[in-house]
């Protein structure tokens, strides 16, 4: 992958999109790279907020940390319009069927973020009432641990998710359970 304008030092983010050579003034790209690029910078998220991590989510989403810088500033409260399901907070056994239905209502391609340690593993709620990690119910693409995670952790997680979306190209495989380990 090269950047036509400066093959030696491609600018950040540009290497993934542009490729090959074409007539002057025309930018050529692989379709999957272009679509991945478009998808990763236009995340519509569905915040499934059930507990205290929601406070940290609000912090990330609002002006100070500003998720909108990464193109993910638009929460949709209908799963039909969302493509990233952010599960934020402890998930009880009682609400698990609702979470599964929300996931099933989302259009492909879709990604799931487990926000906070309760959604990753159940956290310290090792008890009768709590789902021991939402990946026992729905496939998870990104785990953000922390109780709660710092907003910086969330933003780093968001960037990792963007890398993943870019890499997946045209046909993301739903049900990819393990994120790449960096």
């Amino acid at each position, binding site marked *: 992958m090269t950047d036509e304008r400066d093959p030696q030092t491609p600018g950040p983010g540009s290497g993934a999109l542009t490729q090959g050579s074409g007539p002057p003034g025309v930018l050529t790209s692989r379709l999957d790279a272009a679509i991945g690029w478009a998808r990763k910078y236009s995340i519509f998220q569905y915040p499934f907020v059930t507990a205290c991590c929601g406070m940290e989510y609000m912090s990330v989403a609002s002006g100070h940390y500003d998720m909108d810088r990464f193109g993910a500033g638009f929460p949709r409260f209908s799963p039909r319009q969302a493509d990233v399901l952010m599960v934020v907070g402890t998930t009880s*056994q*009682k609400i*698990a*069927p609702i979470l*599964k239905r929300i996931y099933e209502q989302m259009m492909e391609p879709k990604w799931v973020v487990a926000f906070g340690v309760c959604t990753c593993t159940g956290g310290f709620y*090792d*008890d*009768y*009432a709590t*789902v*021991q990690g939402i*990946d*026992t*119910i*729905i*496939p998870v693409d990104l785990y953000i641990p922390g109780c709660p995670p710092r907003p910086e952790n969330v933003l780093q997680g968001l960037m990792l998710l963007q890398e993943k979306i870019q890499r997946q190209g045209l046909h993301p495989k739903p049900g990819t*359970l*393990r994120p790449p380990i960096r």
Partner: protein
Amino acid sequence: MTETELLDALKAALGADVLAAGGVGHDLWAQVAKGRVREALQLFKGTLGFNVLVDHTAADLLKWPGGHWAGVWDPCQATQGGEHERRTQTDGRFELTWRLMRLDEKSGLVEGRAALKCRVSDGEAGPPSVRDLWPCADWLEREVWDMFGVKPNNRPDLKRLLLYEEFKGHPLRKDYPIAKRQPLVAPLPAPEGRIAPEQLRPRVTDPGLVE
């Protein structure tokens, strides 16, 4: 009204059915016979002016060594030389508690607190509902049923409050298996490389009570 005056009023009404009592200053607790709980609560609400039901809950005393107060720091004994009656009823697995508060509606000041307790055996119904005295008792009674399986004797068709209808058993009973899970959604197959729950050391174990 001090704790002694409250106790006198309670004893005048219930006599020997006040099984045990104690307290410090404006904070009274009393254990009464199960059949007279409603009467005692009516007395608290009416004559004694305890207008707020702060909480209604239960404790499962299964395997609790030597009755309820054994080994527990007793404020009455500490401050008043153990003069109070301690004929605490030790039969009956569950101890139900109603925590009451006397709140001055004009000033917003708390003028006194009291706890009424009674013992209920496994499988039998508790005292009658007090929904008509304090409406908030409705949900509290449902919660006690949900968690401990003790229901008021005049509310036969009680629904769970917090857990789902499919849940079997009552999780805050001491004999509810600590690792038992009742998921509503069938779990997905574990991802490749994931440690199975059986391979993990249990995070919570039940050593029982050490005497």
